[in-house]
């Protein structure tokens, strides 16, 4: 396949949104790391200069990715996966520690974060396994293997410690679900989160009462010949009650204070204004400052390089995890909405692309890509605007960081490459 036909067939809409996000991201990195002393764009000693270099490097990697044979990614996905897991293991010996997490290899000119690579190859490996003709996702054993593919990197990443990155892998459950994982898996997951959150907010007593009432209501309204089994429902209700009871124990005895504070802040559990102020100054400082920065932007924002809180470095980690607050302060509601719409469009477009794949592998990988990007976006923006607790993961294409940008780009463009080949049956 010639390079010309790749350019012809590649989905330019996705490419365009990708370019737009990267550009907007860089402009905001420039603003949040800008100092009057170093206004130059091409100074590689500055963070925005470095990011510009990584954008260049990412474009180079796009060229390489598109130039590869399509079958390369499917064929070698298992190898990539194993290599990647070895790299994760190797961190325990050779890893470089930054900010308390041993997550990097020091390659001299830049720090490689293997967990970023692992996201790409896990998506590939999962797609490969699920698309195998012998895999039947309805079978318990195959479900187990699929979950193992996701869990191995999680287990290797948690002790770094980097719970944020580990969390991301769970998004890949969506891929399995799309391919036929029984609905109740999601139902259970949803129930767990619901009971956990409501127990924290309203207490075990109210949750128990609500559960019992719901069950009673169900019996009262049930048609006589309803086929919904009663026993499993009651056992679910009992499980919910037990879980609700255990939530407080886990929250108070297993969680550390900083985790508790994050939840208190998120769910507005703390009503004492003095303690709230204390939380805002300590554990909730980032969230509070970032919310305030976004709020102060108003509808039109303060303008490029005019963000006073950005300039004053009030929001920590603003060029990395909290980059979205810069958008909020300097470009206002107009800017933040634009970014949200761009991301939404990107994801919807990717779903559309994934669904039109003829090859199972391509579709499943596509879903993997969407899951991973979506959970980053959801958790990151949710945290920055204060609807989710603080979990430190970057915003794809936006946040400052070399390996992040490089691997998100690779993640996306491998899929786009697969998409160019959707009409050919190469196998």
């Amino acid at each position, binding site marked *: 396949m010639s390079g010309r036909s790749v350019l012809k067939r590649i989905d330019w809409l996705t490419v365009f949104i990708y370019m737009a996000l990267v550009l907007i991201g860089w402009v905001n990195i420039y603003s949040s790391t800008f100092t009057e002393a170093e206004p130059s764009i091409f100074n590689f000693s500055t963070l925005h200069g470095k990011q510009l270099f990584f954008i260049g490097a990412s474009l180079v990697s796009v060229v390489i990715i598109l130039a590869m044979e399509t079958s390369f990614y499917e064929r070698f996905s298992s190898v990539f996966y194993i290599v990647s897991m070895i790299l994760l293991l190797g961190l325990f010996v050779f890893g470089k520690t930054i900010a308390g997490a041993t997550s990097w290899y020091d390659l001299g000119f830049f720090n490689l974060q293997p967990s970023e690579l692992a996201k790409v190859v896990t998506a590939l490996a999962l797609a490969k396994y699920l698309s195998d003709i012998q895999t039947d996702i309805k079978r318990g054993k195959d479900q187990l293997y699929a979950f193992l593919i996701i869990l191995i990197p999680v287990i290797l990443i948690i002790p770094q410690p980097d719970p944020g990155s580990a969390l991301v892998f769970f998004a890949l459950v969506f891929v399995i679900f799309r391919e036929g994982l029984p609905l109740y898996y999601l139902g259970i997951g949803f129930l767990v989160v619901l009971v956990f959150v409501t127990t924290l907010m309203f207490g075990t007593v109210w949750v128990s009462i609500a559960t019992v009432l719901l069950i009673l209501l169900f019996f009262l309204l049930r048609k006589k010949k309803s086929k919904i089994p009663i026993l499993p429902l009651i056992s679910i209700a009992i499980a919910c009650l037990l879980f609700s009871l255990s939530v407080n124990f886990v929250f108070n005895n297993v969680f550390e204070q900083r985790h508790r504070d994050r939840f208190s802040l998120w769910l507005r559990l703390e009503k004492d204004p003095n303690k709230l102020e204390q939380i805002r100054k300590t554990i909730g400082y980032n969230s509070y400052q970032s919310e305030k920065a976004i709020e102060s*932007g108003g509808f039109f924002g303060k303008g490029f390089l005019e963000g006073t*809180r950005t300039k004053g470095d009030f929001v920590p980690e603003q060029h990395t995890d909290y980059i979205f607050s810069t958008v909020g302060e300097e470009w206002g509601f107009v800017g933040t909405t634009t970014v949200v719409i761009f991301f*939404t469009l990107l994801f919807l477009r990717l779903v559309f692309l994934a*669904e039109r794949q003829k090859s199972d592998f391509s579709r499943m990988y596509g879903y993997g890509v969407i899951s991973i990007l979506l959970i980053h976006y959801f958790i990151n923006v949710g945290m920055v605007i204060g609807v989710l607790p603080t979990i430190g993961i970057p915003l794809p294409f936006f946040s400052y960081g070399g390996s992040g940008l490089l691997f998100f780009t690779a993640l996306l463009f491998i899929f786009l490459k697969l998409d160019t080949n959707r009409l050919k049956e190469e196998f």
Partner: protein
Amino acid sequence: MRKILLSSIIVIIGITFIGRLSYLQIFSFSPDQVLEDPAIKRIYDYPERGYIYDRNGKLLVGNDPAYDVMVIPREVKPLDTLEFCNLLGIDKEKFKKELRKARIYSPRLPSVLVPQLSKEDYARLQEKMRRYQGFYIQKRSLRYYDTPSAASILGYISEVNERDLAANPYYIQGELTGRTGVEKQYEDILRGRKGVQYIQKDRFNRDIGPYKDGILDTLPEQGKEIHITLDKELQEYGELLMHGKRGGVVAIEPASGEILSLISGPTYNPALLVGRERSKNYNKLYNDSLAKPLFNRSILAESSPGSPFKTLNALVALHEGVISPSTTVTCYNGFFVGGRKRGCHCGGGTRNMNSGIYKSCNAYFASTFRKIYDKFNTTDEGMDVWEKHIKSFGLGGYLGYDLPTGRPGRIPGKKFYDKWYGDNRWASSTIISNSIGQGEVAATPIQLANMTATIANRGHYYTPHVLKKIEGKDITDPKYTEPKLTTIDRKHFEPIIQGMADVYKKGTARWVQIPDIEIAGKTGTVENFTVIDSVKTQLTDHSVFVAFAPVDNPKIAISVYIENGYYGSRYAGHIASLMIEKYLKGGITRKDLEKRMLEKTLEHEYAKPFSGEEFKINEYVW
């Protein structure tokens, strides 16, 4: 379902985010960002408060720089404490104590370590200060008074309170504002406008440069200097004369309404309310509930005007045509009203208007007063006419002078008496005391002075005021520069003024003449009462005097009201004549009189009601 689940999640997330963002950025957003933004610090540049000069350009109030040694405890580096203490002139213990206090207050914020250094200490310290990290010298400006007098007119400044903050958004906590007197009245002119600099800060509260390159910054606007109408020398002299006496003295230039002096006794030195001792001194003054030094009697004390009020009744009667200057009344050492005799001190005999005034005959004016009412069919009508005429002299209502406090006095009308006695249950005989300035009429010393100025002007007055010039330019406010006409025809004033001149020549004040100056005046002796142990008790009469001089070309009109000073010419008359001589001649020839007035006090009179014993009133003791 499996196919659309992900798309739905994507859309729901998008909507949730936009919802939250619109809540933050549209609904929670407030446009006063600059005021709340912790990233922007405002530094204020305070202009110097305007100076206040007297009518002759003599300084009354200026500013004095004060230097405070400040400390930011967190920034203090180890230092040679002994050397530093020597430099500051304090001992080591005190230094440690103050530093500890400052640290308890706040380690990050500046506190005063040593307040109000002298200029010499400041000069010595300034150069060496750099060696001591965490310490610096802050310059402040304090009001400086170049006179021990005029406290009640000048007023004082103090820190703004909650009410000021709510009323005027200009002020912020800790700023100063004029609290009383001229300082309050002309606050906007004297204060100027503070300049503001917006500084961008980082989260460690370090300055990182001007906000928006300083386009929002403003320069301070200097406070304007003003000249007030007071005559510094006359004011100071008057306050000396008022030593040990309670009451008010107001002198006005009739031709302009300018207040030459406004004295309240007892008073205090304005410098007491400046600087570190301020609140201690203030409390002392505030708690003196007997002498009430903070109570400005010259504009707040409403009391019966006494005999000077007779001149107005005479004017009304002349205008209404019920008497002529030659009308006579026989005085039987008193007069009869409703079968009761009221006394008179004039000596008895036949009085015409001239002698009625200079001998202050009560019978004459009681008769005159009744004639006014008898002209009309009903008392109500007569009352309306009388009230209208009297009020046109600026009595019975706020005068409108430019000081922030004042009282309206009282000229009772028919409503007042209808309420007091009931409809149609009163007549001119009931209210006859008003004819001689007792009864229900009440006026403040400044109203009496204005009344005198009106007579001196033969029928008009200018609203009394204290502001003369702003930045060297005369005021042009028509409120103070346009004459107010009385309702009395001008031609009726001459006979009255003749009578007032005769008060000096042959009447009740003949012993207080000033050589070469022709004065017109009127004495007043006001009966007054207090309540001691629930018993209404009469006290020594108030001594009242109004005068203007020279008669033909009046330069000064004055009212003097001395509480419990006995008859009119005893204290008030003497003080008035001394003030007039001082103002017109610049010096005093009658040294004996001056000495007596300066030395005599009335403290023994004021102590009487509190002695707990029987006491005599109206004693003839010099």
